[in-house]
């Protein structure tokens, strides 16, 4: 087999199976960090042997067997120092390949021990809770989630977040050390802790999606693969926790937001504003899935949370035939509810935009002015670009121009900057911004 093909085959299997392999190994060893190391060792071995010998008939079983064998070797090495591990190694080795018995099919033995279909779901869920544990720094949670549940390599994570691979590796190492030092158990948290911990899991998936759907730096406006991975993680979580409305709300938000991706960029990759988007290009099936997920969250009758409210806003856009025919009054109400639940300057800016659409720019300007006076969002281009837009609509051209220049100075994304520059050009026909 071609070397590149071989590596691609390993990567594909890994992306599909990594969560279940790490999860099964974590259940087997009782240690998340050890399981992650073992799984990475198995992956490294696959990268050497599969391109040479071909992909095994049962790739997941192969990876599991290698991981399990490494675990036993490790326990044996530590056995001289620790009687507890000696007992464990004997116990774990029973009937296994490394114990000296000679089963006809070692893959099947590993599968019988580890690939328990009744426990795989719990393994993956526990993995999500551990990877998103609040004891970790947010960037550590994101890196660990993409690594162990998403099956992304450090290189892939680094490319997605535009940081050096070494940085990602350091984040993962630090996160694993933190988990080990805090003695975080590999388990689904007890019911009393569940809700609080779930917030962290949802937040991590949301952050991954946000990074993919609106790159904070660089030249590409949307990194679809990262956003798609977040959607996949949300679907996995919805499958694992079907009775948690906020999980369905998050899934709804991601689907409804992603539905607009096909129309959000033009042929040159330039951003296309909502009012200029060709709504026929919106992904109808994604909208349908998003609305179904939102309806499911609403059926729980526990009120919408922060993701549910945002999803409901996205739904208003998704069902509207045009900007003018959008239910802006409902969007204003939803932003007000969101502002009460999770007060944030960005929510206020968005509320101001909705108010401008529902009642005109004069009604919206005081909201933005208040944020400005409070010194909110001082480093973001968001406030001056919205303020500039409102001033344009009020005919206050000179002030609008100044605001747009402020926005450009603060904007880190080249694509978004060019949109702002075009607005200035439209203000000053015949001159270059």
């Amino acid at each position, binding site marked *: 087999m071609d070397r590149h093909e071989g590596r691609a085959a390993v990567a594909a299997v890994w992306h*599909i199976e990594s969560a279940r392999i790490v999860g099964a190994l974590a259940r087997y060893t009782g240690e998340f960090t050890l399981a992650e190391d073992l799984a990475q060792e198995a992956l490294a071995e696959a990268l050497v042997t599969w391109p040479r010998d071909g992909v095994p008939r049962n790739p997941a079983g192969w990876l599991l067997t290698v991981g399990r064998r490494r675990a036993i070797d490790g326990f044996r090495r530590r056995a001289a120092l620790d009687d507890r591990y000696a007992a464990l190694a004997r116990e774990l080795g029973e009937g296994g390949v490394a114990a000296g018995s000679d089963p006809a099919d070692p893959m099947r033995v590993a599968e019988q021990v580890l690939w328990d279909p009744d426990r*795989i*779901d719990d393994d993956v869920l526990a993995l999500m809770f551990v990877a998103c544990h609040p004891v970790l720094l947010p960037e550590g949670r994101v890196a660990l989630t993409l690594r162990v549940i998403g099956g992304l390599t450090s290189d892939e994570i680094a490319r997605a977040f535009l940081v050096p691979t070494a940085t990602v590796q350091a984040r993962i190492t630090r996160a694993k050390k933190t988990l080990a030092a805090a003695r975080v158990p590999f388990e689904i948290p007890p019911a009393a802790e569940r809700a609080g911990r779930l917030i962290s899991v949802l937040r991590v998936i949301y952050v991954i999606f946000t990074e993919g759907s609106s790159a904070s730096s660089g030249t590409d406006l949307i990194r*679809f*693969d990262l956003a*798609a991975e977040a*959607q*996949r*993680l*949300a*679907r*996995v979580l919805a*499958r694992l926790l*079907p009775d948690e409305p906020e999980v369905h709300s998050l899934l709804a938000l991601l689907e409804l937001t992603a539905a607009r991706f096909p129309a959000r960029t033009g042929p040159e990759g330039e951003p296309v504003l909502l009012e200029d988007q060709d709504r026929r290009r919106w992904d109808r*099936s994604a909208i*349908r*899935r998003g*609305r*179904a*997920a939102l*309806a*499911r969250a609403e059926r729980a009758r526990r009120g919408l949370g922060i993701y549910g409210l945002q999803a409901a806003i996205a739904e208003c856009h998704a069902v509207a035939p045009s900007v003018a025919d959008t239910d802006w009054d409902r969007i204003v109400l939803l932003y007000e509810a969101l502002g009460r639940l999770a007060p944030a300057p960005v929510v206020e800016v968005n509320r101001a935009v909705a108010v401008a659409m529902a009642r005109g720019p004069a009604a919206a300007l005081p909201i933005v002015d208040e944020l400005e006076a409070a010194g909110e969002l001082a480093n973001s281009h968001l406030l001056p670009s919205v303020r500039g837009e409102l001033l344009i609509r009020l005919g206050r051209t000179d002030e609008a121009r100044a605001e747009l220049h402020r926005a450009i100075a603060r904007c880190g994304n080249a694509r978004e900057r060019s949109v702002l520059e075009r607005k200035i050009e439209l203000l000053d026909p015949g001159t270059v911004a």
Partner: protein
Amino acid sequence: MKYMLIMRATDEAFAAMGDIDFTEMLETIGKFNDELIRAGVLLAAEGLDDAAEGVVVDYSSADPVVTDGPYGETKELFNGYYILNVASKEEAVEWAKRMPMTGAGFKTEIRRVSTIDEFPQDNVWIQKERAWREATGQL
């Protein structure tokens, strides 16, 4: 990125499917579908009705020529699909005649998409699938 997995079988393979126990086949496919759902990758999955019930619209001549399926040549590339919600086969044929990609060699095969209602409702895998479809708006 989305991909369609196009299930194609030779005539012999298709005929051999008649020998497999139907309940067993539902279980095999049901488990596979369940795997795809667990992995978060399944967006939509549909089976097509009997090819003999299909229609082919051929654009080789000036006016589209409509013939009943199945077609004789089996080496044609299946390179895309639409799902339309229409009232009748004729309505679907009419939409196919209006397709923008026409000319020699371009054909649209029109096949009915079977629904979950046509499967035995007491089958546990069908019940699971129905629950998933209800939850995700795929019915």
